[in-house]
């Protein structure tokens, strides 16, 4: 096993130092307190600032702990912010695929629909922003589960079967989640309601952390081929959109 990563140790020391007193500290103070070269301390401070763990006062240039540290345990990306940042790409995805688009984030053991773009055929449709979907039976939920953004806590009586296709056995679900991790996308084929299907891909924020999922859904014959497998063309469009949103949110590699 490799030894400790020096820059992370130093970053931790800087955070402890800033947390130690009520005062904001200047770069020189941080560097001399920890015996670091100014350049080294500056690089670490700038990285910490980039991930919102540290804030710099505009007027004095001094540093303090960032608000993000206080919310480490909760979702760091506001859902309305996520919708706002995704809007253009979700629209473009609906336009290209011809299907309805939804964005989901985890909320108390369910998927909260935070954004919904109608299927662009001008038929009567109802916005289901605010609706809650089951994690194990929706493509959005399965993607959130697969990438560690949510966990299922099966009740005593087991997971609810919405249709005969719903994955209720833990081993079946786990196998499906492993496959989703490998493929980078997930599907739901008549698992939540008969006749409907959906595909979803993860949206990543800074550092690659999955903050939500984006999905296409519709009648099974529009989403899947005759053998019930999701259409590759839709998946390519979906993953492009997920990557574009992730890039905008600051995920480097996706």
């Amino acid at each position, binding site marked *: 096993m490799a030894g400790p990563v020096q820059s992370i140790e130093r970053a931790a020391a800087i955070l402890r130092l800033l947390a130690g007193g009520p005062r904001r500290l200047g770069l020189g103070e941080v560097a001399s307190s920890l015996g670091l070269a100014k350049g080294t301390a500056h690089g670490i401070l700038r990285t910490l600032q980039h991930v919102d763990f540290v804030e710099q006062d505009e007027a004095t240039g001094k540093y303090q702990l960032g608000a993000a540290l206080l919310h480490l345990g909760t979702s760091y990306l506001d859902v309305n912010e996520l919708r706002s940042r995704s809007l253009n790409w979700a629209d473009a995805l609906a336009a290209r695929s011809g299907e309805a688009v939804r964005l989901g984030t985890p909320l108390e053991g369910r998927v909260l629909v935070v954004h919904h773009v109608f299927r662009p055929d001008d038929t009567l*449709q109802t916005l289901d922003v605010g609706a809650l979907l089951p994690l194990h039976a929706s493509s959005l939920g399965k993607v959130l589960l697969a990438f560690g953004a949510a966990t299922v806590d099966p009740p005593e009586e087991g997971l609810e079967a919405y249709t005969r296709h719903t994955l209720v056995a833990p081993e079946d679900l786990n196998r499906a989640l492993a496959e989703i991790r490998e493929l980078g996308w997930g599907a739901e084929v008549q698992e939540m309601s008969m006749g409907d299907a959906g595909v979803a891909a993860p949206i990543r924020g800074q550092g690659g952390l999955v903050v939500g999922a984006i999905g296409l859904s519709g009648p099974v014959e529009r989403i899947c081929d005759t053998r019930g497998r999701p259409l590759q063309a839709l998946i390519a469009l979906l993953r492009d959109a997920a990557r574009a949103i992730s890039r905008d949110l600051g995920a480097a590699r996706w």
Partner: protein
Amino acid sequence: MVERYVMSIDQGTMSTRCILFDHRGRLVSVAQREHRQHFPRPGWVEHDAVEIWRNVQRIVPEALAGAGVDAAQIAALGIANQRETTVLWDRRTGAPLGRAIVWQDTRTAPLVDTLRDRPGDEFFLDRCGLPPSTYFSAPRIRWLFDHVEGLEKRAQDGEVLFGTMESWLIWNLTGGTDGGLHISDPTNASRTMLVNIRTLTWDPELLDFFGVPRPLLPEIRSSAESYGEARALLPGVRIGAALGDQQAALFGQTCFSQGEAKCTYGTGSFLLVNTGTDLVRSHNGLLTTVAYKIANEPTVYALEGPMAVTGSLVQWFRDRLGLISTAPEIETLARTVEDNGGCYIVPAFSGLFAPHWRSDARGVVVGLTSYITKGHLARAVLEATAWQTREVVDAVNADSGLALRQLRADGGMTSDNLLMQMLADVLDIPVVRPLVAETVSLGAAYAAGLTVGYWPDLEVLRGNWHRAGQWLPDMDPERREREYECWKRAVERSLGWMIRSPGQPR
């Protein structure tokens, strides 16, 4: 090389965006950069025109790279811009003479008050379709002449050029000091108070009145025609359209028929109704404006209700009060409470625009009690946008004698679901969002694409419009009326705050 995309540049109040669209009107790539807002004194708002041009030079290559294409694959460029913002520059050096004075700036209020007394609103309404207001450009030019030594003389000698942002950008794109085109379009030019709204030419009487020399002014071309090729930045790409941002949004929402309306929610919000080739004079506080002029076709007009402060109220809440860290968080904060707790905010930061037109108004927060939390304030911030829209829709309905049956909403604030529901609730009509929220950019792209034949006609563009979301009214009618009454009383309290003292800055 196949020309695959149309490019638009939307030079807005807060930022500049470059977007590529494909044949189906779908967004392909986008690059954006904010510019600094300068507030040197209360009521003053300025931009640095050089910073804005520099931003354009950065985002255009970014947008091309985002789509993996080069300038050769761009069929045409369309420009949409923040309107009325006034920039003067040196014809010889290309350097701006001071910062651009932004449409929200109220420094011309004393002058405007005098004009409203003498010669009075009618004099101006008859000629340019606009009442005197700090909103428009001509009073700013006069102010600059009166406050910058030697400027008026230099303008008379032809050393100075005036433009709104589209003129500034096109001049720079087409060569700048080396033969750059100095042009504008009717949607922009008609907002100066210097253009005759019927003939769409510079009005000698108005020029004379404001003391604006003709050589200062750009040539007025159509909103959609081939102005020429870019020489800088996008060498060889045809510049095919220029529209004020709100008219561009009307175009992008494909409101091509009489009676079709849209409202764009951004820094300010602007409701425009297409009135066809009829020039309609409002009796309810709306502006008569040019919707667009395509090549040599007849001019299409619109009635417009501008609301000066909507999204910028959210920005103020974020940047000046620090109660939220990003604009979309206003919705999160507003949802922490059930209602406004009796609190109303009238954001008359630049006076009140439509339908009141009161430059003596200033912002108020009313109904404060110890009960009020920041959540209630956040709600009042969003409701301010909804109620301002209601006032404008009432004016539109009164002018047309017909009730608007649905509102086509677009712009960045349409990502706020709570606001969209509030709009449906207070207007009591469905609110629909189109599949492309960036209608300003889309409209500029559409107009430029029509010019070069990338799209054949308006019908094809109409076919690109799709509904992406819809909110239906769900509010008890009694409550709606009660709240509207409260809003109106709050508005009354914002009026007359600035006390007139002739000749004094206010």
